[in-house]
């Protein structure tokens, strides 16, 4: 750990709190982020881009007479900070009084993130030649497959971020975390019939990165399986979501469960606490304390300790996800999900079931495996979903051919009640994730007829 730097940031945060209080603010919260980034793109065997950098950033929030102002700067000069503080207090005067405004009352820091497993010292020890080798090797193996006609390149990234957080209630916390990621993106087919696919692995620890050959093979398989797609006719059919797609659906679910969207009335799940909103098979957790996972952290962006929450239990909505502000608006407790000025997930996931993916496919006499979506088309206000889609057509329990240029439409509220099977293939590849699922019916639009 950079002990000297940690101490410097601690002093800076404490100085800023003191200065802000001396200028008349009632409450203040300071965040300092210090990051180091290395990123490398290799394409067709040659290095294309190599980026190495360090950056730091300070954000603070001041509250005076229950009026709030924010400021942020990458210029950490004390004169700049003083000016921003004075501006901030002046600006706060022009806001309106908001009885819910304020910083978190939590003052108990969980201290060092020991046991959470989010820092790998290899981030500093790793040789850049090794990073170049990993990216080059991944792309080389992928390009050995003759069906691959072009490459978007392979990338290797490492990142280290130190977070310092302090507030005028006496909270102080500091932790460092690391990320390693390796991936490759490919094209197959000829100019007028091109398909694209990719695979990657992102982890807290270098040793957890999937082997180059595995990433390459997955990327190849995901690319070539889309070759020679057909359009299908417009119809209502059952749909299997691959784990990545379940993650996408859960991301939409998360955005509909934030306390912010509830008090703003921008979610169809407002007012549904304690109700059966999903099939009994559905249990969803948000857990910020799972060792080594991508959404793990000792405390949230307001210093509230993270925890394990059951968000949906056997289909019943148990809690919204809140930061301090949305919790006060809803007369609830913060769930430790503050993320900047909004609400974010820790490890938000759907509890896996018992069936493996092949068994699920076998149950389907006719339907679509959804492999990728494109576009926007998510409306949290009513739960409507409408996206461009790519997939694999299933007939009699087997993959028949790839499908492209169709759209899928449905409604999240109905989908939650129509999840028929949940797979056992949950992997924590991103902060929001889930296993394969089968949904009873959605509309797929393609050709008329």
């Amino acid at each position: 750990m950079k002990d000297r730097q940690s101490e410097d940031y601690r002093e800076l945060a404490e100085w800023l709190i003191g200065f802000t209080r001396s200028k008349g603010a009632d409450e203040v919260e300071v965040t300092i982020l210090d990051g180091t980034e290395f990123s490398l793109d290799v394409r067709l065997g040659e290095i294309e881009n190599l980026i190495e950098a360090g950056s730091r950033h300070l954000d603070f929030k001041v509250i005076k007479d229950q009026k709030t102002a924010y400021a942020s700067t990458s210029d950490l000069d004390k004169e700049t900070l003083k000016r921003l503080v004075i501006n901030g207090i002046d600006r706060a005067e022009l806001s309106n009084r908001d009885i819910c405004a304020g910083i978190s009352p939590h003052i108990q820091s969980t201290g060092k993130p020991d046991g959470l497993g989010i820092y790998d010292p290899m981030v500093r020890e790793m040789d850049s030649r090794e990073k170049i080798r990993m990216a080059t090797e991944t792309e080389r193996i992928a390009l050995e497959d003759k069906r691959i006609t072009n490459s978007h390149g392979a990338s290797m990234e490492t990142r280290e971020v130190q977070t310092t957080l302090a507030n005028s209630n006496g909270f102080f916390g500091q932790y460092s975390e690391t990320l390693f990621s390796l991936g490759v993106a490919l094209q197959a087919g000829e100019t007028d019939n091109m398909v694209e696919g990719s695979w990657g692995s992102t982890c807290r620890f270098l040793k957890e990165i999937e082997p180059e050959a595995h990433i390459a093979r997955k990327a190849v398989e995901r690319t070539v399986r889309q070759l020679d797609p057909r359009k299908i006719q417009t119809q209502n059919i059952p749909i299997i979501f691959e784990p990545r797609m379940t993650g996408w659906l859960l991301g939409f679910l998360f955005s509909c469960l934030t306390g912010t969207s509830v008090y703003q009335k921008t979610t169809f799940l407002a007012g549904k606490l304690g109700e059966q909103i999903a099939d009994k098979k559905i249990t969803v957790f948000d857990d910020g304390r799972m060792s080594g996972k991508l959404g793990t952290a000792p405390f949230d962006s307001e210093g509230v300790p993270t925890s394990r929450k059951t968000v949906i239990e056997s289909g019943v909505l148990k809690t919204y996800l809140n930061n301090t502000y949305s919790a006060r608006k809803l007369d609830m407790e913060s769930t430790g999900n503050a993320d900047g000025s909004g609400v974010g997930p820790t490890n938000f996931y759907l509890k896996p079931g018992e069936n493996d993916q092949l068994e699920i496919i076998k149950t389907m006499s006719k339907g679509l495996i959804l492999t990728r979506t494109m576009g926007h088309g998510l409306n949290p206000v009513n739960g409507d979903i409408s996206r461009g889609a790519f997939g694999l057509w299933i007939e009699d329990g087997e993959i028949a051919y790839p499908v492209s240029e169709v759209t899928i439409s449905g409604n999240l509220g109905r989908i939650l009640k129509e999840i028929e099977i949940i797979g056992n293939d949950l992997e924590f590849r991103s902060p929001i994730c889930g296993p394969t699922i089968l949904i009873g019916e959605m509309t797929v639009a393609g050709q008329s007829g």
Partner: protein
Amino acid sequence: MDNTHTLPFFDFFHISDREMQKVLDLALSRGGDFSEIFCEYRIHSSILMEEDIIKETGESIGMGIGIRVISGDKTGYAYTNDLSPAKINSAAITAASIANGKIRQKAVPLNFKTNTHNLYPIVQSGKEALLEAKIDLAKKAYLTAQRFDAAIQKVRVSFADLTRYITILNSEGLKVSDVQPMIKLVCLAVAERGESREAGFSGGGGRVGLEYFTGTLTPEEIGREAAQEAVQLLDASPSPAGEMPVILSPGHSGVLIHEAVGHLIEADFLRKKTSIFWNKSGQKIARENVTIYDDPTIPYFRGSYNIDDEGTQPEKTLVIENGKLVGFLQDRLSSSLMKMSLTGHGRRQDFSCIPIPRMSNTYIAGGEYDREEIIRSVAKGFYADKFQGGQVEDSGKFTFSVSSGFLIEDGRLTTPVKQATLIGTNIDILNKIEKIGSDLKFGLQTGTCGKGGQGAPVTDGCPTIKISQMTVGGIK
């Protein structure tokens, strides 16, 4: 604002030309072909109004230096916002290491180039304006939306202004600066009736001053438009599903041109042969009625700039002329590797990013048809009115998401519909553009395009367009 004489970096950064020259040389010390220093200082302020109160305001300062070295087709890049000489030199050495030989050339002495034009001569800049004046704009939009209809349950208005000071210095002796203003006022309105709940959105801005809101577009109009869309959607039916003729509304539908054509004529995708268009230069890729431009020189537009993020003065670029592919959007690296001239489309989100070819203001030129005449020509079809956005991949497959539209029955717009996705492949759709209206309009001055993790402000424009057949994704 005086754009021609300001050299803000040397106020903010306290770095002299001589020192910069040394850094450019240091960056070439391993044998690179080209070195560049990008300096950026940005001041951003924001206001949020919801639940009838000014809830919060913010001020943000970002600054940093990005050093780039090009060696053949390789790029080394390093950035820092710690501006101590030691850190800057270390960034130069890091970027230099993309080449691994001996020094081959020194940087040409810097020669300050003044901009001969200013695309954004504004009266009252967002940076200079009083916070009270900006709060007043937010309130006007808010109250208009709220009072529009009893069904409006929730309004959220945000105002933001950004002033971006950039200076680019490179080993070819270029030194050029720009001060780029940006304002954005957006309104979200939510309407509720019974179990039905819908949202509407509108906004405006660009590289303008506050005077824009008394002349070009008032905050009241922004509030009204957001509320109107939300209320209209309460009565909207689910979209139909299947293939049918589609008419695109003028203005908002420009996103189709952005997705279906724009990204695939960005030179990096052509150079790497990943774009479906890579071998189609000079060929007919659309019907003859289709002419498309990308123009970074439209005054006050969100996608415009006096210089791009590599210091190149941009040009209005003809991309498709009467159906033929004739132009690409170039940055330095791609233009030199492709041996084509620069067009001034090298843009970056900020100092932490490598510049890449990007769109600016992309539009399809107006045609000969009257809008009503186009609508009358469809017996049964779909009218796409407003959009949430779109996406394309290099293979040419694209989607765009319609937030509101209408059914067309017997040549008239009838039932309002909501939430549909249009999907297609670009060459196919470009050859199905059957009629183009004479009513070219630009969409909202609020759009940001994402590519390779970098956001860039853009606009797009389009007249009324009829596509003979397209897949509309809705509910069956």
